[in-house]
């Protein structure tokens, strides 16, 4: 096959990049503002999602092994930006900033629209919760399809395992303290097959939805 001229290859790459960033999801949109508030029930709707990574297994041990394997540098510390790329097993994967229109983030919509696999995959998700003051005695409360492991400010706080559907407040952390300013929430959701999604919110000391914070995809210091 005749090789393409150099400028033609660049045009194709640029078009592919636009296609990646302008993909249309049924329930996800591109964030249009720097910060958002949780929805009326406290659900966090703004996330950075990484394209799926192939993995196998939903049991406790398999999930723990999958999420603690290093796929890319800074996996547990990086705060990515929209369109950032990482390489996993020689495959380039892109981070996408999204807002969900619903209480949950539909990962099937996310990956399917990108023509990526939705079964036997791991999704990384990151968001930043900005608190106007220290908030103690709160809990992260999540649901996921299927297994998932969650970190708040680098501390692993929830692990739920097995083939399961997303149920609001399925997995709930122990009481924790959100510090004043940015708090990083990170998740790894593993799907076996079929639909896949997650939802997340914080609960206050009375197990009511926590509000009074904002969500952003970069650290905001006031």
């Amino acid at each position: 096959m005749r090789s393409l001229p150099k400028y033609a290859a660049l045009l194709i790459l640029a078009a592919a990049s636009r296609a990646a960033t302008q993909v249309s999801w049924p329930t996800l949109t591109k964030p249009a503002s720097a910060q958002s508030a949780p929805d009326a029930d406290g659900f966090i709707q703004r996330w950075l999602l990484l394209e799926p990574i192939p993995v196998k297994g939903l049991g406790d041990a398999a999930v723990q092994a999958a999420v603690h394997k290093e796929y890319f540098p800074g996996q547990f510390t990086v705060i990515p930006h929209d369109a950032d790329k990482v390489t996993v097993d020689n495959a380039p994967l892109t981070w996408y900033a999204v807002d969900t229109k619903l209480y949950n983030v539909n990962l099937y919509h996310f990956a399917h629209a990108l023509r990526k696999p939705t079964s036997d995959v791991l999704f990384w998700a990151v968001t930043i919760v900005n608190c106007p003051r220290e908030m103690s005695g709160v809990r992260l409360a999540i649901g996921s399809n299927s297994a998932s492991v969650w970190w708040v400010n680098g501390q692993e706080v929830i692990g739920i395992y097995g083939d399961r559907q997303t149920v609001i407040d399925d997995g709930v952390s122990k009481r924790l303290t959100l510090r004043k300013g940015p708090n990083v929430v990170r998740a790894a959701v593993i799907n076996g097959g079929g639909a896949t999604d997650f939802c997340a919110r914080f609960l206050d000391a009375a197990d009511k939805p926590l509000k009074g914070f904002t969500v952003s995809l970069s650290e905001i210091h006031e």
Partner: protein
Amino acid sequence: MKYGLFAILLLCSSIAFALDGHLVIHDPSTVVSCDGKLYTYGTGGSSLVSDDGWTWRSGTALPRRGLAPDVIHLGDRYYVYVAANIGAQPKAAVNMIWSKTLDPSSPDYKWEEGGVVASSDGIEDSNAIDPGVFLDPTDGRLWLTYGSYFGYIRLVELDPKTGKRVNDNDKPHDLAINCEASDMMYHDGWYYLLATHGSCCRGADSGYNIRVGRSRKVTGPFLDADGIDMIQGGGKLLIGSGGRLIGPGHFGLLDLGDGVQKFSLHWEADLDRGGASVLDIRPLLWKDGWPVAGENLKEGTYAIESVRTGTVLELAVEGMPVGGPRQRPRPGGMFAGTGVAIPPQDAAQVSAKWPPGNIEPRMANYLCQAQQKWTVTAVPNVGGYPGSPYFKIAIAGTDRALAATTDAELVVLPAFTGAPEQLWRIDQLADGSWRISPKSVPNSSKPLALSAVGSSFATLSEFDPKSDKQRWLFKTP
């Protein structure tokens, strides 16, 4: 060795008795609290006292001895109503005495005579014994029921400021017949008249049983669930003889707050205690507007299910399907099963991969797996609470014990040591579910209860009687 085994069996079986310690009493009064102790008084000067409601000992006799006293705490006084026959039945009188304390070691322990508040002349259709005193929570009026098998159970009004009869000339209200040991309580817009039917004082041959009717008015009529007036002999059964306990009588309400109610009674004969008449305390449940006698938790192996979520408490370890992973393809098709019963899964089969140290509990769908079965065992010599001893809750077949942590969360320890945070109080609630509370939580003075938070996790939090979060079911696995 033989005797050692016998001693162990005796120890284990003793916790199945009604309460613990010295329990012999007949016609016990309502159990009342005074300065951290619980007191009850019976016929003939008998008295029992307890520090926790589980272990009882002999108390100090009242200065006025008689038949079937009842006691109530109003303001700074404890009023005791005690009856005595005057010659032959049914000539009798109910006397009142009062003291500022029930604690004989207190300088305030001094009984004053309050006089006769009800009587029967030996001719009228009444026998003025077995008083039951009731404070109406809706209006603060104080009432006394009394009577035995000679004629009617009657009601007179007392003065809550003095404990005395409001008006000696007021005609008593006739409420019931063919019973004795009456008492009253109020619940959700209804007045309930509790009374004991059947024969008394015949040991293991006693037919005593406690029955109830209800009315919208304190003065009756009190109808049973079939609409039969108690004044015509009606009465819905609250509790009768059961197991090796014969002849329950003399209901007394013990309201512990937060919707947790229990009741005191005596058994005419506890066959495991030589047929003695003994005190007991049982949970009081409610169903369709009627009180129901509950059961104190029995030792056993259970799945502990959250009423809120339907998931069960388990050790947070990876489960193994009972019978092993499903084989595919399976002869006979994927839904055919193996054709033989699958044996139970126990910890010995699957625990080799469990971490040796602390493991967190969590909740999951019930799958009959080893990490979901908890053995609940009464712990001797560590006290208890009204009706029950403290329990150890451990994964069946192991010593891995549920415990409270310093941050009011939960952990399963590798071994039980008997520390207070490993001891559990298990109270049956009005709907038949259970509240599970640690004896103590390190660094916390708040009473906390096991609580479902989300579908898959449990924690400790303050009990909310309006929520299902802290309601649990003990199911046979």
